[in-house]
């Protein structure tokens, strides 16, 4: 059987490409805001239960149970805030970008239901600053929702009030970390905060706060419409439902594919995305955004299952981004470019990451440029282990946030899969330099 998508959150935007983002189309053809009535007929606790029953796990990267996260809010403490994370910056991830530009009403509806479930009267969407068209369409969607009584006071006669504010970021990866996002939303540098206290206890303005991803919000209306059990019936094990995967790099048809979890990497990469073009072979792929340890073609028949990826493959599905590299790709070059990214994006708060990220970049740079030493890979692992003690996924960390261990994820991958190839190359480079010195002397 050929691999197929199972479209839930991406169904409407795929079917109605000409105007799916408009209020009129979303109302007429996608039942936008009709799930609110169902939601308001339930108590907030019933919605939390229903979402817990669905098994939905956060689609931002960490994969924490959404309903469970909501249930952590301390009882009776108000005000509470809902912050929606649309700061999509994990390299190679572009699913939220599509959802924001092409189905903003689905997001707004999910936010209204979620805010009601957690009893927050003020919600913020932190949208990546570079998404200019997305900001325009999302703001239009918010304005339309206000105009039609789905935001503001006493929504649909329910007695529930909600103010929704779109907040544009200004260019920085670490605002995508949930506490980095809160710092940024408060008008500061987007530096992550030490936990505990967790945002559920003390988040935005030190009030109880839930931070959820755009795709997570987009899923909520469907769970309300069809029930938690329906959603839990899709997927595999504790990876329930569908997920959007962004497939990029050396594939025939790069793009977003919404699939039922449990499908194999091969079905997604070769079946849906068309595999490596030009008759070339795959050298390796990154299975969950730049921060995820790499995998090889031999892993293609493994299932897209968040727990299997962690326990069996020692990587993660992370942000749902799969990047494929063909046989002509230099893994050292990819590693160096990722190192450069982390060095640029390290916020500078924790010493191991601030110092380590730029040293990793410097050493990888000389390795790529033919100036490496045979022991350089071990050198990287040696000082990298002060960021990631043990160097084994799932990564331990000496930093506040996960950016620290991410700086080493690709280095660990080089060591795991390409060690011999790299050491041989470094030795060859060193020999070549030595012979040059001798001849020129």
């Amino acid at each position, binding site marked *: 059987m050929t691999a197929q998508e199972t479209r839930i959150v991406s169904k409407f935007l795929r079917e109605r490409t000409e105007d799916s983002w408009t209020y009129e189309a979303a109302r007429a053809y996608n039942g936008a805001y009709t799930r609110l009535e169902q939601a308001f007929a339930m108590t907030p606790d019933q919605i939390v239960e229903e979402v817990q029953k669905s098994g939905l796990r956060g689609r931002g990267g960490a994969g924490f149970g959404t309903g469970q996260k909501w249930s952590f809010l301390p009882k009776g403490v108000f005000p509470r805030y809902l912050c929606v994370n649309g700061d999509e910056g994990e390299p190679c991830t572009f699913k939220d970008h599509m959802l924001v530009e092409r189905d903003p009403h689905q997001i707004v509806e999910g936010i209204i239901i979620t805010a009601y479930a957690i009893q927050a009267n003020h919600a913020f969407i932190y949208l990546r600053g*570079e998404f200019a068209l997305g900001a325009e369409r999302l703001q239009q969607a918010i304005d339309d929702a206000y105009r039609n009584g789905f935001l503001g006071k006493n929504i649909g006669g329910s007695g529930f009030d909600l103010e929704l504010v779109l907040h544009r970021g200004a260019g920085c990866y670490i605002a995508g970390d949930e506490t980095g996002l809160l710092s940024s939303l408060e008008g500061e540098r987007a530096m992550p905060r030490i936990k505990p206290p967790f945002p559920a206890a003390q988040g935005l303005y030190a009030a109880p706060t839930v931070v959820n991803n755009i795709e997570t919000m987009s899923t909520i209306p469907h769970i309300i419409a069809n029930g938690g059990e329906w959603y839990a019936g899709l997927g595999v094990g504790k990876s329930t439902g569908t997920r959007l995967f962004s497939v990029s790099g050396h594939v025939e048809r790069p793009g977003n594919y919404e699939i039922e979890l449990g499908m194999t990497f091969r079905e997604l990469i070769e079946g849906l995305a068309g595999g490596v073009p030009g008759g070339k072979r795959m050298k390796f792929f990154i299975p969950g955004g730049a921060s995820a340890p790499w995998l090889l073609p031999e892993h293609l028949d493994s299932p897209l299952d968040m727990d299997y990826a962690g326990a069996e493959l020692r990587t993660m599905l992370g942000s749902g981004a799969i990047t494929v590299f063909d046989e002509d790709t230099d893994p050292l070059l990819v590693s160096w470019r990722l190192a450069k990214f982390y060095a640029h994006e390290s916020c500078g708060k924790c010493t191991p990451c601030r110092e380590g990220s730029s040293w990793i970049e410097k050493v990888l740079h000389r390795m790529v440029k033919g100036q490496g030493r045979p022991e350089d890979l071990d050198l990287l692992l040696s000082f990298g282990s002060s960021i990631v003690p043990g160097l084994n996924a799932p990564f331990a960390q000496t930093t506040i946030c996960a950016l620290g261990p991410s700086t080493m994820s690709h280095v660990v991958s080089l060591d795991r899969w390409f060690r011999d190839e790299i050491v041989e190359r470094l030795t060859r480079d060193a020999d070549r330099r030595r012979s040059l010195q001798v001849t020129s002397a």
Partner: protein
Amino acid sequence: MAFSTTDRRRAEEIAARYPQARSATLPLLFLVQDRDGSVTSQGIEDVAEFLGLTPAVVLGTCSFYTMFKTTPVGRLVVSVCTNVACMVKGGMELHEDLRRHYAADDEVFVEEVECMAHCDRAPAVQVNYDFHGPLDAAAAVDVVEQYRSGALRARTISGTSQGAAE
């Protein structure tokens, strides 16, 4: 300079969206950036004065974010992604070509950026935060020139729609 009456009204509107006014720091920095063509020390002082913060605090926030330009960048900001998905599709060469092409052009500022979430259209380029891709150097220059001539309508250098504030 301080805020004009219109800007002050706009700033008050923005600050009113937040339970605490300091949250308006980023949107207000976009506002002064669009007003002055970059975030100038006057812009920093205006935002600081409005929010009741010191200029150092506002600059401290400002300097953390890549979309705030503290030196003049002309009228068009061309962002070229060179992160891995674009790199394997020629993003680095594209950046280098565009950088050379516009090196002496005061109106066009070419910058290398991290992943912009447009990887299915690699190599990706943004012109004042509108997406284009996949492009080779000739096609990218053509797009930039269309913005310059007005054939394509450019956003502000903060990525806001022309005409609309913030």
